[in-house]
């Protein structure tokens, strides 16, 4: 697979997801960067910042004409901002300890929009078939989640191809980081 083409298709897919999320939240959604790099295996757990910082993540594997993994990571505060934007009345009624399920639900929904838009655009653009797994929502250390994804893909090469997409919602830094790990 040509990664330059993949990045272009991801950009096209996220443009459509951006519009959908903007309509749902009533805020501007901006894709702030799309970068492709080859990272040393040992550096991948540091990709989203401090490896022991807690994130909510949606994990999707895809198979078909090519295989890989997508991780969409949200800082807990960013997930709360997303939830407030998507369901303001509902959030106002909830106590702090009741928000976990809501955050997971919001992360799942937003990740479905982002992940399926990106995968559909890659599949259409490369005329390939990609089959995504159901998303798995995990709350844990960012580095542990990235490491577990590498293990799941039994990545053996020293250099790992990574596509790193960063997004933000409205004027705040609230957003998400989408990481593609092709196998």
């Amino acid at each position: 697979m040509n990664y330059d083409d993949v990045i272009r298709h991801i950009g096209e897919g996220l443009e459509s997801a951006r519009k959908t999320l903007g309509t749902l939240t009533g805020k501007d959604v901006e894709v702030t960067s799309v970068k492709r790099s080859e990272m040393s295996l040992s550096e991948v757990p540091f990709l989203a910042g401090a490896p022991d910082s807690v994130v909510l993540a949606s994990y999707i594997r895809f198979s078909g004409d090519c295989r890989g993994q997508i991780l969409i990571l949200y800082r807990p505060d960013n997930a709360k901002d997303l939830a407030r934007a998507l369901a303001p009345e509902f959030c106002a009624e909830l106590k702090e300890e009741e928000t976990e399920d809501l955050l997971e639900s919001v992360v799942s929904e937003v990740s479905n929009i982002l992940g399926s838009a990106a995968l559909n655009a890659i599949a259409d653009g490369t005329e390939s078939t990609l089959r995504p797994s159901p998303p798995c929502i995990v709350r844990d250390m960012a580095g542990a989640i990235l490491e577990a994804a590498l293990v799941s893909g039994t990545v053996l090469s020293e250099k790992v191809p990574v596509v790193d997409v960063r997004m933000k919602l409205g004027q705040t830094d609230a957003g998400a980081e989408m990481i593609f790990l092709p196998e």
Partner: protein
Amino acid sequence: MAEVKQNVIVVKLGQIAWSDRPEDLLVAYSLGSCVGLTLWDPVERIGGMAHVFLPSSNGREISRLEEAPRFADIGVPLLIERMERKGASRKRLVARMAGGASLFPGLFREMPDIGAQNVSAVVEILQKHSIPIVGSDVGGNCGRTMRLEIRTGRTTVATAFGVKKEI
């Protein structure tokens, strides 16, 4: 009491490190399916850490030395050898281990549980070298950060959910 300054050495995925300098603190951040292993010689006060990525090299030829420790079957014996060169005795070494979790449990039932395989591989290698495991916090489905203080040999494990314990 005077503040003790610590020199943090980060043992990244697939790496090993060892030290006899009291100010050193070896850290393996965010172990998921990987296993963190510490070895400690209480007489010479030499400590080592491995951040094991996969259980076996399956006979694969590893041309670059820095890539070798990621596999338990190469990394653990290599750590023992490097600590012995530093003055540690294999007979005195004690081991502690953490990690080997399954962060996406039940999602891919057809896939092997590599966290559990990493734990089994490390245990088997330690048994082969007659090194006792004196502390362990493995399995489950949460990430862990493991730290080894060379000054004391104290090994701690912390999770994302505020649990911190000495093993």
